């Protein structure tokens, strides 16, 4: 079949409006655009608000504590975590301006996926570890504060029992963190790496032909 015949067939596309009218499409897209923007704003607000609210809470706890340094350290880490969220959002805002050609767009998509892979594979160091340290600091702060307020004799006699609830928190938190870490690594393996491979395949297809063209 020659290409002109294919073109004729292709131009007779069956019903180009199978699902929705133009008005329905426009309503759907505008609603989806607004809802996506709202969701992103809400998510960013919750992440940042929670981090900085917790920092304020720890600072307030420090003000009333006998041993202040664990609470102040925890507040500092939460402030830093909030700053990381802000930096991340500012650096990875959706691109505006001229729409890239297909080659440029694939490169952008690949860079974005690789960034996501880096974020999720290192979630332990930039997210879970600081949160873990914060939890340990709160634990230590609460223990020291309790010890400082108790009669030294009672503390010397009962300290193993008094420490038990605090010690039990650590393995529970470690379990929760392991689940979060595992879910992130699973997302990398199941979604991001295959997507990266797909993008690289398409880019390779573009590049191979260009190399051949360059050699001609």
């Amino acid at each position, binding site marked *: *079949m020659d*290409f002109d015949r*294919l*073109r004729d*067939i*292709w*131009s*007779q*596309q*069956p*019903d*180009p*409006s*199978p*699902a929705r009218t*133009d008005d329905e*499409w*426009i309503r*759907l*897209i*505008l609603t*989806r*655009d607004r809802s*996506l923007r709202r969701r992103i704003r809400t998510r960013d607000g919750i992440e940042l608000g929670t981090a900085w609210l917790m920092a304020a809470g720890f600072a307030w706890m420090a003000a009333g504590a006998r041993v202040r340094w664990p609470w102040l350290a925890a507040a500092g880490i939460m402030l830093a975590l909030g700053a990381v969220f802000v930096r991340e959002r500012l650096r990875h805002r*959706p691109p*505006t*301006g*001229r*729409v*890239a*050609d*297909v*080659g*440029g*767009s*694939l490169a*952008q*998509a690949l860079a974005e996926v690789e960034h996501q892979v880096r974020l999720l594979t290192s979630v332990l160091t930039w997210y879970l570890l600081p949160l873990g340290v914060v939890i340990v600091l709160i634990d230590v702060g609460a223990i020291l504060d309790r010890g400082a307020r108790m009669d030294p004799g009672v503390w010397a006699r009962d300290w193993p029992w008094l420490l038990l609830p605090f010690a039990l928190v650590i393995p529970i938190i470690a379990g929760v963190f392991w689940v979060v870490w595992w879910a992130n690594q699973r997302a990398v393996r199941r*979604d991001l790496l*295959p*997507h990266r491979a*797909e*993008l690289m395949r*398409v880019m390779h*297809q*573009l590049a191979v*032909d*260009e190399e*051949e*063209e360059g050699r*001609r």
Partner: protein
Amino acid sequence: MIDRELTFRRWLAEHRGILVKVSRAYATAPGDEDDLMQEILLALWRSLPSFRGDSKVSTWIYRVALNVALSRRRADRHRRDEVPLERTAEPASDGEAAAHGRLQWTAVLAALRRLAPVDRALIVLALDGATQQDIADVFGLSANAAGVKLHRARRRLAEILEA
């Protein structure tokens, strides 16, 4: 905002065929066509403020649509490109000639879906009458490179159709 919406409405009315063809060519499963169309329209809506009129509207729309189609994550990798023919064929209700035309169109679509994604994009553009320069603009290639790629893609399509 009103201008943006009016332009979007006009583009949709005038170039809906492009969006539907790209969605059909890159759908990975029967329900995926609608999802892809939504993603493309959303990208088109967001790209609209940056359109300065220095390229043809159709070229811009093709660029946005193919950017989405080529860089999106397939919803289900295992079912990719396996949309059965009968699912894409419209029910015959208006005569034998029309039914035959639809069958031929569906056969072309099925052949297209067997091409690699970049080849598919080149053929979709060429079938819609895009010039070598239009294809070069969409892909960010030289006109010569676009011509060579198109030639190879056409050869691969012919091989599939002859098989």
